[in-house]
């Protein structure tokens, strides 16, 4: 009981000291106009992805998979702002639906990666010594492996479902987070509040999860924001190769692949999915940079 009380108190102190960090970061982020614009774009895109396809269906009666071969590929028009694809499907609906896959796979895979990486890094840094050398050696080995090849093997082994896709991406993408968190925990664990917690009889697990990990949160967030675009890129990479999301479900990667095959005649089938993909990654990178600068002013040079 006493432990819990002390734990709460130290958490309160943490949150007081922490809140000023978050407040400072928030103020800095508010000043960053480009990060704001990027954030706004992403929110709009997110809303568009969630409700756009349903909206298009109700208002115009398009969906992302009904084929109309007689109609065929049409250039952009008022009726179809992004045109239609080879099978007469509305490209706007397909791009929105594909962007939804990208965003959700990106976020979930980055979340899986952050989850594994944080715990792995914290455990490695906290226990130190032989455990640490062994665990970091494993990270080094995984770093040396041809990453994308590993994902390709995992995807072909596990099968091509959306859930397995982000699990496979996340399972291989946690290395950076693990390294960053470990580095922070190495210095955090020497501080007095950890000694205090230990002397009060807090278990190792309690120290790691209640005292160390919360203090690494800002770096975890920074690596998370940088992981999201790279996960999105990798999902699209796999879908482009035909290893990711399977038809008729569209994905930006597979749409770009289709578009690249017929770009000479039907340019819009490449330009719109490619443009949305690039803009989305651009906005995510900009927002990620903004968040990093806001949370870690030393890194801003």
């Amino acid at each position, binding site marked *: 009981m006493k432990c819990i009380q002390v734990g709460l108190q130290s958490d309160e102190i943490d949150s007081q000291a922490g809140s000023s960090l978050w407040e400072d970061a928030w103020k800095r982020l508010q000043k960053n106009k480009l990060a704001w614009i990027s954030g706004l774009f992403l929110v709009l895109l997110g809303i568009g992805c969630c409700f756009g396809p349903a909206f298009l269906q109700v208002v115009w009666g398009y969906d992302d998979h009904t084929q109309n071969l007689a109609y065929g590929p049409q250039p952009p028009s008022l009726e179809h702002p992004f045109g239609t694809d080879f099978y007469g499907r509305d490209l706007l609906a397909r791009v929105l639906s594909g962007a939804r896959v990208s965003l959700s796979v990106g976020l979930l895979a980055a979340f899986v990666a952050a989850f594994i990486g944080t715990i792995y890094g914290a455990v490695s840094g906290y226990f130190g010594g032989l455990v640490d050398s062994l665990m970091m*050696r494993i990270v*080094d*080995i995984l*770093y*040396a*492996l*041809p*990453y*994308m*090849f*590993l994902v*390709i*093997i995992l995807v*072909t*082994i596990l099968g091509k479902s959306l859930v397995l896709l982000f699990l496979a991406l996340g399972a291989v993408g946690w290395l950076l987070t693990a390294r960053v968190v470990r580095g922070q925990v190495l210095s955090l664990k020497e501080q007095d509040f950890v000694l205090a917690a230990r002397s009060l009889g807090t278990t190792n697990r309690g120290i790691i999860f209640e005292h160390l990990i919360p203090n690494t949160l800002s770096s975890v967030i920074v690596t998370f924001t940088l992981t999201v*675009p790279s996960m999105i*890129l990798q999902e*699209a*990479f796999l879908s*482009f*190769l035909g*290893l990711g999301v399977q038809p008729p479900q569209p994905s930006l*990667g597979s749409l*770009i*692949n289709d*578009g*690249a095959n017929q*770009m*000479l005649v039907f*340019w819009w089938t*490449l330009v719109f999915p*490619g443009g949305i*993909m*690039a*803009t989305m*990654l*651009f906005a995510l*990178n*900009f927002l990620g*940079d903004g968040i990093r600068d806001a949370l870690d002013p030393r890194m801003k*040079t």
Partner: protein
Amino acid sequence: MIRLLLRRLLELVPTVLVIVVASFALVRLAPGSPFSSEKEIPAEIRQKLEAKYGFDKPLPEQFIRYIGNLLKGDLGLSTKYPQRTVNEIIANGFPVSLTLAAVALLWSLLVGITAGIIGAIRQNTVWDYTAMTAALVGISVPSFVLGPLLVLVVSLRLHMLPPAGWGDWHHVILPGLTLGTIYAGSIARLMRGGMLDVVRSDFIRTARAKGVTEWVIVWRHMFPTAILPVVSYLGPAIASMLTGSVVVEKIFNVPGIGPYFVDAAFNRDYFLVMGIVLLYAFFLLLLNLVVDVLYGFLDPRVDVS
């Protein structure tokens, strides 16, 4: 120095062993077999096929045989391309992939370093903003978008370079640019950061006070220190260039190793998948070693041993 290199090479042995065991387990414990994707094969023929590749033996025995062959430099037979050994396929494809990655690396270093230096010495000017926005655009445009767009504009509209194929230097430019641009963006950002870290150091102020010209300050005094973040990024960058060439090789129809790998993973072509993974892993380990040693040379503060 030589002793150090030898020691680092020896340290690679357990790592390589772990990679061999892990990839063997991963590939072999996967459901499916090299012959399951084909149409129904009569049991008799199937048995003969399995005997030919040694798949009828228990797994541990197969593993020991594989290691034995590996030590002799024999990577086995491909099951998808029955007439060819894995060694042959790699010997044909790997130099192509390597050339592509080398061109991409050259391009990314050239553009990235230039943009980074311009951004740093003209910090917070239009030059800086332009260079850094361009870098971020470079990072954000994936190769599979940039590639087709380059083909569309440069090859099909302007008729300047061939859209696909492999042969002379004309063919290497577009895929090289496509593959290298993302890394050029990252390198530009790292280079700018590295330059800005040293720009206010005492030794730069001393050099200025001595009246050293700006050109010499940038290249002789700042550059060797500022390049360090770029050097440590080179290992992962080359690794992902080599694997990233899968997509670029597909777009430009380049006969590298990438398309083989995707096919092999699909068809459970055990020995081909293993061979390619091991080759790349070994190559990357060596490369990281080279980068570490290079880092030690460039930065006397780092103790390489």
